[in-house]
């Protein structure tokens, strides 16, 4: 016990807790809330409507001239109003449900979605010792010279961990459908499980070529490699200018397309939202849910979306790296990155995620839903084969055009 305590790294623990709180509660959850708002506003402008624009900080009530608005876009407090509404709604449990699983299901949707974020490198490094000059007057010893990595758990099996946990999300949906003891949720959950199983395969296979190119399963190192040598889909600097990287760009693009399509299916978004198609199944697997339990399903879907786009950004679009960073002098250098650049990297990562989410939303409001047999056919006959052939293609190309 004494040895255990002696070897205990308290600073690591504190840093981890701070990172978890920062990423989960200060970034992901507000982002989830605001992506719901973004979805409503974006869908509104696509359909030539205005969307929710009334909920704001009512400064005019306190004698100010104008309410807070960005570019004249109102409704920035809509997520708060939505959350408050969900909390105030009656939490109704139908009598016929299996109560234990009925309560478990929303948690099982939300928790895996949030758990997957631990391996995402959301920034490069934060050299907190840069702050020592600022807080020196406090008389504290100050931060150590070792920079803090901007990732909660620097696992060497990053993508595998993400897939393992993310696929647990289907249990939430299946349990919700089963425990509700009602036919529409049940149909929805059966569809969801069939769909997730068929797309999990192509999702896993689609990133194998990526892993072959990186020769690496550590997401942090992947990001560092892409920062120095060009993103997988934008090899325009460093080693990325070599012939082999440009030849491998083709299978990478195929991988990216398969990955994104499979991710849409995994997160149950249109055009693959058969689990909750409103027109056929009322609301799908969460028909019998109300209040905060319903909100958890809703938030779980958006959290999964954010994590999924985070993974896609990290694998294909350079993670936190700033485009053309070596030319701009904004590239990462282990241990020598100033604090402001570390923060800029974090910002870059989230900007990329936001763009990706807007793309998600745009797709949702552009494409019609697939029929179930079309979905299965697409999954098993095209995406799976394409991903498999892509692995082979990458392997052959890598023999003839070896990377350094």
């Amino acid at each position: 016990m004494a040895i255990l305590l002696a070897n205990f790294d308290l600073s690591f623990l504190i840093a981890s807790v701070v990172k978890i709180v920062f990423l989960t509660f200060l970034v992901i959850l507000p982002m989830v809330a605001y992506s719901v708002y973004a979805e409503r506003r974006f869908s509104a402008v696509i359909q030539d409507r205005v969307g929710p624009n009334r909920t704001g900080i009512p400064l005019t009530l306190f004698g100010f001239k104008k309410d807070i608005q960005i570019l004249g876009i109102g409704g920035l407090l809509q997520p708060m109003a939505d959350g408050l509404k969900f909390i105030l709604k009656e939490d109704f449990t139908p009598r016929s449900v299996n109560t234990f699983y009925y309560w478990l299901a929303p948690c099982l949707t939300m928790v895996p979605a949030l758990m997957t974020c631990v391996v995402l490198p959301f920034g490069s490094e934060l050299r907190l010792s840069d702050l020592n000059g600022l807080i020196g007057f406090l008389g504290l010893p100050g931060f150590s010279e070792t920079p803090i990595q901007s990732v909660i758990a620097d696992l060497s099996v990053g993508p595998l961990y993400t897939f393992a946990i993310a696929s647990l999300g289907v249990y939430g949906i299946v349990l919700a459908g089963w425990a509700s003891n009602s036919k529409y949720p049940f149909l929805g959950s059966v569809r969801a499980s069939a769909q997730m199983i068929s797309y999990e395969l192509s999702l896993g296979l689609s990133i194998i070529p990526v892993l072959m190119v990186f020769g690496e399963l550590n997401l942090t190192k992947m990001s560092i490699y892409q920062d120095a040598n060009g993103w997988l889909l934008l090899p325009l600097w460093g080693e990325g200018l070599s012939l082999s990287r440009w030849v491998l760009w083709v299978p990478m693009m195929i991988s990216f397309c398969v990955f994104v399509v499979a991710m849409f299916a995994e997160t149950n978004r249109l055009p693959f939202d058969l689990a909750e198609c409103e027109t056929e199944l009322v609301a799908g697997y969460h028909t019998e849910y109300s209040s905060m339990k319903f909100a958890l399903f809703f938030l779980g879907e958006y959290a999964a979306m954010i994590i999924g786009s985070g993974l896609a950004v990290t694998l294909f679009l350079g993670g936190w790296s700033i485009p053309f960073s070596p030319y701009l002098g904004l590239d990462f250098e282990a241990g020598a990155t100033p604090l402001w650049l570390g923060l800029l990297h974090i910002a870059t990562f989230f900007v990329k995620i936001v763009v990706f989410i807007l793309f998600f939303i745009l797709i949702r409001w552009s494409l019609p839903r697939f029929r179930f047999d079309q979905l299965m056919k697409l999954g098993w006959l095209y995406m799976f084969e394409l991903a498999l052939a892509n692995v082979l293609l990458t392997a052959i190309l890598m023999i003839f055009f070896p990377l350094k």
Partner: protein
Amino acid sequence: MATIIVQRPKLAWHEKWYLSTLVKGLKITLGHALKTFLEIVGKKEKVTMEYPEQKWDDKLPEYYRGAPALVTDEHGRERCVSCQLCEFICPPKAIAITPGEIPSDDPWAKVEKRPLEFKIDMIRCIYCGMCEEVCPEQAIYLRKDYAITGESRAEMVHDKKRLYEIGGVRVGLVNKWNELK
């Protein structure tokens, strides 16, 4: 019965693989999104009016049919002589008139009658304008008020006072009771 063979469009490979069709669809939605977004931030003229703040009152056409109301003439006389024609013509039976006699010492005593009570149930009214058309005295008009609200059914029944409030004064037109002209 003749058999109709429906001509399905022949799709090119890129259309079958959702490639060009996807791009086309995204272009349409993004175009609409950008257009409406520019309208919202004020870089383009808005098509949508945001109702309680912006009203279209000054853009109403001359022939707009809003709430029916009673009018007085330039001498402050009630034009209505409670002939009850509007009550009889009203398709949803929204109008209820209680006729009353004008006392003989009134300067307009020769008109003989005026409404003691005039009620229009605005829940029933369908804004057809038949009352306006049938009125021989041109006493009832459809004004441009369209936001008729109330918190109870009773509030939605416009009585005589309210009707004259909405209607106001109309000068000219029929002058047959006016000896001063």
